[in-house]
């Protein structure tokens, strides 16, 4: 595409460049504050102190387990649901589809009390399942919506041809849907990763055991641990943010496309 703003003269170009730079400063400032604050006082000693507490590893492990399980559940169920809604004949499927869409507006805080009671009753309170299942359930309406739209674009003729060649429904799913939906599949994985890795409220309420808490609870853990020594709390914030930033920088295009696919309906 052609430039939206056309700046032919060098002075105009310089002006645009200055304008963009001025606009990003407020976005950069908090990140600079975070790093600079974490190095105040004892400098790198803050980081050493945070690592010496020794719990960082367990918090990361919990977050990894929760994110990976959520991603697997969301991916499998979304693909099956998208295939079913788009290509199979299911009675009253549009009614089910609208019921799923209505759940898009559901705030998680509304679910806290019933989830608390339900997880206690099922005996999964204070386990990873108590967080993984609701996280997956909250993610699925969104992912089904975008995946169905994508699967709708796969021509029916492919499935007819497969059936004539004697393929079962599952074979069609495995060898047509899975390979052809890779782009949207990647978007779903990224969306779910961010949603589950950044989840705060559900782990806060549904997991008590410190050995199973997630990285989003880490800053608060250190607030009590270091009795409000801000520099160490900020060091712990930097440590939790780094994996996310590195993942984003490595998979820039994938993250941006994935989140964009999730937002445009």
């Amino acid at each position: 595409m052609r430039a939206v703003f056309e700046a032919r003269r060098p002075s105009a170009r310089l002006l645009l460049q200055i304008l963009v730079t001025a606009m990003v400063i407020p976005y950069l400032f908090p990140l600079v504050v975070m790093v600079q604050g974490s190095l105040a006082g004892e400098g790198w000693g803050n980081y050493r102190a945070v690592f010496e507490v020794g719990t960082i590893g367990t918090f990361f492990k919990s977050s990894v387990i929760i994110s990976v399980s959520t991603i697997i559940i969301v991916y499998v169920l979304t693909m099956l649901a998208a295939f079913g809604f788009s290509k199979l004949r299911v009675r009253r499927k549009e009614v089910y589809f609208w019921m799923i869409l209505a759940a898009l507006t559901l705030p998680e805080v509304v679910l806290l009390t019933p989830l608390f009671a339900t997880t206690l009753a099922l005996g999964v309170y204070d386990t990873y399942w108590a967080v993984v299942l609701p996280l997956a359930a909250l993610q699925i309406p969104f992912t089904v919506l975008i995946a169905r739209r994508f699967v709708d674009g796969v021509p029916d003729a492919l499935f007819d041809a497969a059936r004539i060649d004697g393929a079962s429904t599952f074979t069609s799913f495995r060898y047509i849907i899975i390979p052809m939906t890779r782009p949207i599949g990647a978007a779903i994985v990224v969306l779910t990763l961010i949603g589950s890795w950044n989840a705060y409220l559900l782990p806060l309420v549904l997991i008590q055991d410190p050995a199973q808490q997630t990285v989003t609870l880490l800053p608060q853990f250190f607030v009590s641990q270091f009795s409000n020594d801000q520099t160490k709390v900020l060091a712990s914030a930097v440590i939790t943010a780094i994996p996310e930033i590195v993942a984003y920088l490595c998979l820039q295009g994938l993250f941006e496309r994935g989140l964009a696919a999730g937002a445009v309906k």
Partner: protein
Amino acid sequence: MVGILYYCIGETGYLSTLDWDGTSPTPTSVGLQNYQDILVDPIFWQAIWHTVVFFLVTFTAQTAIGFVFAALLHSKVKLATVYKVIVFTPVVIAPATMAPVFRQMFAADGQLNWFLDHVGLGFLSQPWLAQSSTAMPVIMFITVWNFTGLTFVLYYAAMGQIDPEVLEAARTDGASNLRTLVSIVWPGVRSTTVALAMLSVIGALKTFDIPYLVTIGGPNYATEFLGTYIYRISIPSAHVGYGAALSIMLLVLALLGAIAVAARSNRKDGESGV
């Protein structure tokens, strides 16, 4: 999976008719009393008012900044990738991770006041989070900081879809940069704006992490939202029944909000013949 969600809504509906502390074995049924109480609860109305103002301000700011930024980066500025990464990075960081950073930054002896002092604006420095008048703008700033990256990426992609020949024709006819932006680019990305409005309405109603972690709804309820209010009523104060009734109100509002935005955008499509 969706079964879990609907089961929870059903249970919330039932709980909302109780006066229950969450643990006692004999909850009292009070019928619709909880709902009557909500209608005269000043904090509830305050939270609604905050949500409306919050939505209007953050949506306008994000749209304006995201749109202008996307247009600028479509204009062959140097180091475009660096700018893009800076604006998008906040989207991937958890609000829970950034909360202590913002508490520190906006503290009375924090970096923002330090910065203001050093650029000669020292008279502006104040305890940002401790005053009712400034706490809400800070929460809004953090939200805008957090989500503009998404707005920007969507507009950036949408602008890439605009037919270059239309832009070319406008230029040939002597349209200025501003004129092109207003008359061609802005209408060209309308469907993105609608999708973002929908997300913002739902997002504003769901707001929890940022006000809870940065200001805990205070000072003096100045940053109380429905989400933080429901949490405080249900968990620390253990008025489970009242919390559930508030939850049902929130759910109804979220559905109505989404329907309102969808209906409005459909009507506009009809009018313009799209």
